[in-house]
C-alpha cells in the first residue's frame, strides 16, 4: 500500500491559517494585558507547540478521516469496529463463493479491551502494593523514610529496557528463578511468554510512579490531625479510614493517572516478556504503522486511544479538582 504524502491544498491553507491565528492571538494578548513584555515571552513556545504538537495532532486527525488517496472516508473507524471491513469488501468483489468468509473481525476491539484490562490490573496491583509502601515510608517511626524514597527512585533512572530484559534472565525456562526452583527440588515453572510475565514487567516499571505521589501527599499531611483524632477517641483503624486516607486521595489519583495511561499504551514489555503471544494496543498501533504501512487505520486507532485517555483523565480530574496531587503532572 503506497503512502499518500501529498495533501490537498485546502489542508495546507487551513494549517497556515491556524498558524497565523495563533500568532495573532499572541499579539492580541500582548496588547491587552498589563505585563506587556512578559507575556510575549511565551510566543516562541506557542509557535513551537503549534508546530510540533498541534499540527501533528491535526495530521493524525486528517489521516484518520481519509483513505490512502486523500478522499474523505469513515472507513478507518469502520475498520476499527470491524477489523475485517475492507477485507470483507474485497471478498464481496471477488465473488459469491467467498461470501462465506465475510464475518466481522473483532481484532481491534479485543486488543483494546485486553489492554484496558491489563492496565486496570496493573494499576490495581501497583495501588495495592504501593500504598502500604508509601504509608510505611511516611510513617514517622521509620526514620529513614526520605532515604528510602531515593532508593525507590534510583531504579527509574536506569534504562527501563535493560531492566525489562533483566527480567528475561530471571524468568526464562533456563533462567535464574527456575534454576533456583530446580535446585530446591521443585518443578520448573513456565514464568515467561504469558500474561503474568507481562503484568509483572508492567508493575515493576510503574510501581515507583504510584509510590512517589502517595508518599508526597502523605508527608504533606499535618500530623497534628492524627493526634487530634486520637485525642478525640478514634482508634488506629478509624484514624486511618477517616483522616489519613481521605487526605491522601489527591496523591492516589495522581498515582493512578501516572500508571494507568502508560500501561494502556506500553508496547515494549508485551513483546519482550510475552513472546509475541500477547498483543496489546501499543503493539497494534505500531504494527499498523510500521509493519503494515497503513497510516490511515493506524491514525484512527491512535485517535481513538487519545480520546479514551482524555475521557479517563477528565473523570480522574473530577475526583481531584484542585490538582494538589503530589506527582509531577
Amino acid at each position, binding site marked *: 500500500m503506497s*503512502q499518500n*504524502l501529498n495533501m490537498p491544498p485546502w489542508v495546507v491553507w487551513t494549517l497556515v491559517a491556524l498558524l497565523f491565528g495563533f500568532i495573532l*492571538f499572541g499579539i492580541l*494578548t500582548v496588547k491587552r*494585558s498589563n*505585563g506587556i*513584555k*512578559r*507575556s510575549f*515571552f*511565551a*510566543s*516562541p*513556545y*506557542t509557535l*513551537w*507547540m503549534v508546530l*510540533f*504538537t498541534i*499540527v*501533528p*495532532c491535526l*495530521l*493524525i486527525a486528517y489521516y484518520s478521516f481519509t483513505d490512502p488517496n486523500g478522499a474523505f472516508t469513515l472507513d478507518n473507524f469502520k475498520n476499527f469496529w470491524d477489523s475485517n471491513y475492507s477485507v470483507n469488501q474485497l471478498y464481496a468483489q471477488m465473488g459469491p463463493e467467498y461470501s462465506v468468509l465475510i464475518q466481522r473481525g473483532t481484532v481491534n476491539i479485543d486488543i483494546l479491551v485486553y489492554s484496558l484490562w491489563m492496565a486496570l490490573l496493573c494499576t490495581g496491583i501497583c495501588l495495592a502494593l504501593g500504598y502500604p*509502601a508509601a504509608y*510505611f515510608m511516611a*510513617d514517622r*517511626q*521509620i526514620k529513614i523514610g526520605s532515604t*528510602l524514597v531515593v*532508593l*525507590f527512585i534510583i531504579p527509574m*533512572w*536506569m*534504562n*527501563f*529496557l*535493560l*531492566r525489562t*530484559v*533483566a527480567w528475561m*534472565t530471571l524468568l*526464562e525456562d533456563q*533462567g*535464574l528463578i527456575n*534454576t533456583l526452583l530446580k535446585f530446591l527440588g521443585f518443578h520448573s515453572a513456565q514464568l515467561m511468554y504469558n500474561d503474568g510475565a507481562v503484568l509483572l514487567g508492567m508493575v*515493576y516499571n510503574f510501581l*515507583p510512579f504510584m509510590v512517589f505521589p502517595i508518599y508526597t501527599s502523605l508527608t504533606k499531611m499535618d500530623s497534628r490531625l492524627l493526634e487530634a483524632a486520637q485525642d478525640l477517641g478514634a482508634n488506629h483503624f478509624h484514624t486511618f479510614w477517616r483522616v489519613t486516607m481521605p487526605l491522601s486521595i489527591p496523591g492516589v489519583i495522581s498515582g493512578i493517572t501516572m500508571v494507568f495511561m502508560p500501561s494502556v*499504551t506500553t*508496547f*515494549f514489555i508485551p513483546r519482550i516478556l510475552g513472546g509475541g503471544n500477547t498483543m496489546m494496543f501499543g503493539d497494534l*498501533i505500531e504494527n499498523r*504503522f510500521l509493519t503494515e504501512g497503513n497510516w490511515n487505520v*493506524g491514525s484512527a486507532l491512535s485517535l481513538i*486511544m*487519545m480520546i479514551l485517555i*482524555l475521557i479517563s*483523565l477528565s473523570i480522574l480530574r473530577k475526583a481531584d479538582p484542585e490538582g494538589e496531587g503530589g506527582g*509531577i*503532572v
Partner: protein
Amino acid sequence: MKKLAKRSYLALMLLFLYTPIAVLILQSFNAGKSRAKWEGLSLHWYAELFRDQAIMKALYVTLTIAVIAAAAATVLGTLAAIGIHAMRKRPQAVMMTMTNLPMTMPDIVTGISLMILFTFSKIERGYVTMLLAHITFNTPYVILSVLPKLKQMNKHTYEAALDLGASPSYALLHVILPEISPGVITGLLLAFTLSLDDFVISYFTTSPMVQNLSTLIYSKARIGIEPTLNALSALMFLALLALLLVVNRRASKTAKA
C-alpha cells in the same frame, strides 16, 4: 512487632526493585556471553565496551541530545513560564491546556504524530528530528517546574524593580531569574533525565542510522543482550550513585550552614 512488619514489607519491596538490577550488574562480570551460564568473573566486557563502535556512538548521541534538548527546553520553557504567568486568566487557561496536552498524550501517539509530521514535510528522519522531538516533549515539564516558583514569588517584585529604574531585561535576569532558579534547575534536570531514558518517541523519530542507547538496546534485545550493554548500565548506575551522594552531601552542608 508492628515496626518489624513494616520494615520487612519495605525490605521486600526494595528486594523486588533491585533484583533485576543486581542481575544486570552481575551479568556484566560474567566471563561468558550466555545469559544463563556463569563462566567466572571477568572485566572483559568493560574493555569490550569501549571498543564497541555502535555503543559508543549511541552513547554519544544519547548524551548530546539529552544535553542540547534539556538546555533548549529549559530556555524555551522558562521564558514561556514567565510569559504564561503574566497572562490574564483566559489566555492563561488556554496555554495551560496546550501545555498539559503532550503530557496526557501517550508517548506512542506523540512519537507517531511527530513521525507523520516529519514524513509529511519530507524532512528525513535522523539526529535533527530526534532532537526536535526531545525538545518538544521536555518543554512542558520545564514549564510545570518553573510555574510554581513563579506563583510563590511576590507579585510586585518585578514592578518594584522597574520602579527603581531597572530596565525590563535587567529586571528579568537579575531579579526574577534568581528567584525562580530552583524551579529552573529542577526543570533542567527533569528534562535531562527524560531525554536520557526515552525510548518510544526516539524510536519513531529517528532513522536506523542514528541510534540512541534505548533504540540500540531495543534492536539488540530481540537477539540477545551482549554483556557490554550490562557493563554500560553498571557504569551508569555507579555514576548515578556517585552523583546522588555528592548532591546529598552538598544539601546537608548547606543545611548545616
